């Protein structure tokens, strides 16, 4: 049986850990509320933006738009080089949040590797970057501290090079992998193909609406700037959605940790009481046998 002092020390240390995890949970709850609000408000805008873009892509696919062949809207048959942008947290202690994203990236990497496609990884968030560095997977580009404080300007600056490279034909696809917020207790992994715009859900035999007109002297320029905004917004939305998910994941993880600590203290207390009782019993026996021997 363990020494009384040892058990006491252990109880104290577990209680301290419990205090820390509880505090972390409270902090995450407060941060989650703010992040969730931001993500919720943007959700509708992001969804509509996707819809508008997908519709343009669909119409281009079905030739319902006058002679446009913008690279961003046309499915590329056999890509040579692709960009994968992933978003992970800057900090750990949030359960399987980062690992899920990393796993999805690895899967995508393996798929492309099997097809002999060159992949350029662009990472956001320290945890993912560290993981790939440790495993000696080459990162084309990486940025830390963006995923914990999403900033529109910085995210625009980060993603613009991918957009430019795509337009110049240096890359043939752009994927975004991130863990998004679904509700307080669930996160949803998103693996989105951002470029070329996905038009697969658009069926060409749908009842004919009128021909789409692009009202601009320079249609290409208009689509270009629209694509820039769309991808930049998709990036920003991925970041804010990921922050909300990170906080919800951390809140859950810390809640579980606090509960585990509680259980541990409970079982340690039982152990402590048993040990104490044993010590008292031994002492009593010693005293009684001492008295007996003196008779």
């Amino acid at each position, binding site marked *: 049986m363990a020494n009384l002092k040892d058990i006491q020390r252990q109880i104290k240390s577990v209680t301290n850990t419990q205090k820390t995890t509880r505090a972390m949970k409270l902090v995450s709850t407060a941060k989650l509320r703010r992040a969730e609000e931001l993500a919720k*408000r943007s959700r509708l*805008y992001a969804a509509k933006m996707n819809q*508008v873009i997908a519709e343009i892509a669909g119409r281009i696919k079905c030739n319902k738009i006058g002679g446009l062949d913008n690279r961003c809207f046309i499915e590329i048959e056999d890509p040579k080089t692709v960009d994968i942008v992933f978003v992970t947290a800057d900090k750990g202690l949030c359960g399987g949040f980062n690992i899920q994203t990393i796993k999805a990236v690895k899967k995508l990497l393996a798929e492309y590797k099997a097809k002999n496609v060159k992949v350029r990884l662009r990472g956001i968030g320290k945890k993912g970057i560290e993981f790939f560095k440790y495993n000696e997977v080459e990162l084309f580009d990486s940025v830390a501290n963006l995923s914990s404080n999403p900033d529109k300007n910085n995210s625009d600056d980060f993603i613009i090079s991918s957009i430019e490279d795509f337009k110049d034909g240096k890359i043939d696809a752009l994927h975004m992998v991130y863990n998004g917020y679904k509700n307080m207790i669930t996160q949803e992994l998103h693996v989105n193909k951002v470029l070329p715009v996905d038009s697969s859900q658009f069926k060409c035999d749908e009842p004919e609406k009128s021909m*789409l*007109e692009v*009202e*601009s002297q320079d249609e290409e320029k208009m689509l270009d700037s629209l694509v820039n905004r769309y991808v930049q917004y998709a990036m920003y939305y991925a970041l804010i959605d990921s922050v909300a998910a990170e906080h919800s994941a951390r809140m859950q993880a810390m809640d579980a940790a606090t509960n585990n600590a509680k259980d541990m203290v409970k079982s340690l207390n039982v152990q402590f009481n048993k040990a104490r009782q044993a010590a008292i019993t031994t002492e009593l026996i010693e005293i009684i046998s001492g008295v007996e021997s003196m008779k």
Partner: protein
Amino acid sequence: MNKLKLEILTPNGVIYNGNALSVTLPGEEGEFGVLAEHSCLTTLLEAGVVDVEKEDKSVESILISWGVVQVDEEKVIVLVEGAVAIRGETESAISKALEDAKKLIKSIKQDSSAIATVMAKLESAAQNLL
């Protein structure tokens, strides 16, 4: 007269969602109006004022920064990056909206004459509300 469904969305939420009689938008190539059953159209918008003629014929002015509009037979979707609607019950609410609008337009346009044109438009819209 037919009504059109109008949605104006920003990353910070919905600015307008409902029926309207007509809407005037600041397109890149110049201002244009949209009535119900307009043919399909997608175009970019530049910073300026969107005038929404509501069902009761009152006009609401909304200042927008960069945006894109998608028009089809059923609905008009306006996606903008930033917007301030000039509306409010009291004079102070309206003047607050005007202040916000001024801040927004100053942050996107340097050209002082352009700012003045937009602000004059918004101020006259605010006058009509009172």
